């Protein structure tokens, strides 16, 4: 198949950036989206042009490194699929595809489609953990966990930290990411001692990083490759309220 790509090109943080159009020919429907870009990049290199920079690593949908806004949708329109797991068979021959980076002030563009997501790490630093130094843990079976709680915690824990939620949110809010971690830890007995202080610290850090507030539009869940549910945000709000009531 043949495609027209309109790709965001930006040399560096200071460059204003622009959309550039490329024609890509002979794309196999079995290619992944990133492989299609690989093919384009190989040609760009040979023509002496700078290839399109994009982040990726595992190419299995688990590391959370990849991510671009494809035709206006983070990770593309295919549901529950990361960019690296998206395949070209979902596109029509002759289609025009726009490709843009995540757009949010706390995710400044480094180059082309590569953005800086270190804000997420700082939110985890603020409290997204259980304080338990190595060697201090009791036997694993001394803390039974209800299966339902363990499963729900797991659902939240599957967040891969890709940032698509932020990219999709009309408010540029990181609520879903933050709520996923808060929910994961607050559903487990191990997470109880730090539960409220964690919620408070993480929400405050999210604000300090410059993310927007959530107005419950639900765009985030809709694009989340791991389908993190919206009720995690309710849980985060509840914990945050409780923390402030204390």
């Amino acid at each position, binding site marked *: 198949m043949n495609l027209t790509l309109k790709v965001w090109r930006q040399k560096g943080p200071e460059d204003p950036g622009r959309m550039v159009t490329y024609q890509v020919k002979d794309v196999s429907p079995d290619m992944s989206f990133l492989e299609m870009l690989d093919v384009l990049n190989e040609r760009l290199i040979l023509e002496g042009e700078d290839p399109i920079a994009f982040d990726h690593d595992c190419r299995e949908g688990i590391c959370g490194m990849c991510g671009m806004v494809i035709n206006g949708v983070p990770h593309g329109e295919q549901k529950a699929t990361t960019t690296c797991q998206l395949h070209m068979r979902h596109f029509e021959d002759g289609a025009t595809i726009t490709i843009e980076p995540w757009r949010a002030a706390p995710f400044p563009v480094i180059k082309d489609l590569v953005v800086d997501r270190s804000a997420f790490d700082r939110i985890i630093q603020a409290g997204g953990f259980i304080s338990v130094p190595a060697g201090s843990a009791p036997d694993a079976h001394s803390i039974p966990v209800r299966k339902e709680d363990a499963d729900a915690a797991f659902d939240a824990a599957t967040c891969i930290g890709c940032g698509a939620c932020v990219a999709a949110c009309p408010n540029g809010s990181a609520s879903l990411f933050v709520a996923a971690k808060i929910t994961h830890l607050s559903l487990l007995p191990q997470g109880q001692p730090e539960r409220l202080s964690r919620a408070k610290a993480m929400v405050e850090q999210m*604000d300090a990083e410059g993310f927007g507030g959530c107005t419950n539009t639900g765009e985030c869940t809709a694009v989340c490759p791991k389908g993190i549910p919206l009720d995690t945000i309710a849980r985060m709000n509840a914990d945050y309220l409780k923390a402030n009531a204390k």
Partner: protein
Amino acid sequence: MTATIERGTATAPVPSTTAAPPAPKPRKRPSGFLGSSTGKKVVMAVTGAIMVGFLVLHMLGNLKIFFGKDSFNEYAHALRTLAEPLLPYRTVLTVLEVILVASVVLHMWAAVSLARRARRARPVKYVAKKSQAGGYVAHIMRWGGVTIALFVVWHLLDLTFGVVNPKGYDSAPADRMIAGFQPGRWWVTLFYLVAVVMVGLHLRHGVWSALQTLGWARGGRRRMLQVLAGALAAVLVLGFLAPPLAITMGFKG
């Protein structure tokens, strides 16, 4: 290969201050609960709830017009003489009005400050953007809010102060209302209709959103609460629209 360079719409410069990645940003703590985005949302939810409560009562009151002008006037009078003689004329109503005004102001303040925060969070717009959540109501909250605010101004001038009402200020509430919605003033009714539908849409999202903000929309409850919000919004719309439509269409008068 031909690379056509094109200037898209999304060419606002990216602030360079945030560019250096590893340097941890100083933790600028916002000032307390009200400074936090979640805190502001709670303010919106609580003030929104107060306003919803008012609207429910207001709607019920309005429906009294169907029991005759006197019933309606009595109700309007009763409002002003609540808790008399313990408290002077109009005290409770004034307190309620103050709460209401405070709610409106706080609600708007929170809405504006969240909107500004959201704008700062996305300084560069997408060239292409497609909604995936399929709920347009959530995206028109701010416009809905502004429409409602403009409506309330008109509405107060009309039915409370009578400035734009044919009967003027010195008249019984029921007369003002009936006069205001005479068939010849169909455009007023139409304006109310639009506004009330806006209120309905605002609440369809707003009510469940408030519950989510307060942390109650957990577990499997979300679907149910969303349906509930829709039902409440529908009841309000119908209840509010019944009197003016009835008057305009001449069933009453």
